[in-house]
């Protein structure tokens, strides 16, 4: 044992040095751990805040969805009210047109009678009066009124066509609603401690929801797509092969 003494001591000093190194390293690392703890202390309220915000936002989503649906319904109602008025204007214009036709026929009859009268009368003064009555016609004014009625009819129809915007915007709103639903699903999954099966059920019901809108719907009269559709249908009607249709597709892409 005496012979091993120096070696044992040397080993002991070696171990002590290792221990010292650990303490030195520990001294160095303690501030890092401290700053990590401080960071965690700061982060926890922040995370709680985020969690609260997510929870609040998730609860607000159903009312946002309902509001969008209300906008869609209100717009459809208003559009139909406008269409009712447009129909009413159209009916009134038809009545005005019929009345105008009556007046035009009456005016023509008046002229015919004056012509007849002219052939029967020989007195110069009377003939002058008949001519005056004949020339004092409302025919031109009636034509002007007819033109105005036609123009109002045209404008009325243009209003009808412009109301297609309601269908297009309602599809856009439905697309936004669907997007909100997807966010709601993700957020609910984040904040709710759901069993796997429950979460899968939620996901299934979201995915199975029928999509009856076109998210790319847009109100524009400059439709390049209509030209593409026209070309495709032209190609189809000339008994073109699928390869040729595919080629047309790759060219227009």
């Amino acid at each position, binding site marked *: 044992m005496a012979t091993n003494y120096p070696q044992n001591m040397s080993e002991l000093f070696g171990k002590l040095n290792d221990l010292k190194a650990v303490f030195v390293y520990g001294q160095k690392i303690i501030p890092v751990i401290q700053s990590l703890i401080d960071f965690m202390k700061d982060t926890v309220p922040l995370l709680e805040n985020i969690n609260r915000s997510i929870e609040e936002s998730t609860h607000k989503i159903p009312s946002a969805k309902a509001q969008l649906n209300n906008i869609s319904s209100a717009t*459809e109602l208003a*559009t*139909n009210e406008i*269409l009712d008025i*447009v*129909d009413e204007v159209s009916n009134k214009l038809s009545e005005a047109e019929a009345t105008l036709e009556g007046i035009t026929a009456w005016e023509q009859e008046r002229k015919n009678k004056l012509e007849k009268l002219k052939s029967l009368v020989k007195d110069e003064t009377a003939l002058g009066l008949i001519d005056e009555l004949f020339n004092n016609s409302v025919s031109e004014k009636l034509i002007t009124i007819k033109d105005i009625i036609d123009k109002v009819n045209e404008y009325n*129809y243009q209003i*009808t*066509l*412009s*109301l*297609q*915007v*309601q*269908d*297009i915007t*309602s*599809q856009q709103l439905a697309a936004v609603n669907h997007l909100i639903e997807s966010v709601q699903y993700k957020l609910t999954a984040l904040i709710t401690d759901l069993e796997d099966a429950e979460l899968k059920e939620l996901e299934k019901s979201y995915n199975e929801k*029928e*999509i*009856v*809108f*076109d998210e*790319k*719907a*847009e*109100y*524009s*009269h400059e*439709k390049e*797509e*209509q030209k*593409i*559709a026209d070309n*495709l*249908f032209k190609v*189809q*009607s000339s008994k073109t092969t699928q390869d040729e*249709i595919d080629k047309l*597709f790759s060219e*227009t*892409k």
Partner: protein
Amino acid sequence: MSVKFLVVDDSATMRRIVGNSLKNLGYQSFVEAVDGKDALQKLQSDPEINFVITDWNMPVMSGLELTKAIRSSEQFSDMPILMVTTRGVKEDILQALQAKVNNYIIKPFTPQILKEKIEQVLATV
């Protein structure tokens, strides 16, 4: 040829607009359906219908499904079908083409386009 249209659209606004446009073009006879399923029932119950104008995006049964159902039925397989939709993506147009719609209009349509397409379809039947 006397034409009786079946206007299929889930939007009441669009049904009215298409209906008004048809009247404006001189076609007085048309009936309406709210989706593909309703349209099939109308076709069964009204033998005078000889032209279908349908939207694509509808609940219950879409316009594309309706087209496929019509084309696969013995009774109505030759029915002229005009699709009026917002879907302008080329792949969608091709899908409609493959389902054998007779022509395709992208909303919003103009009266000229509607007239032109109806006449084109009628010329081929």
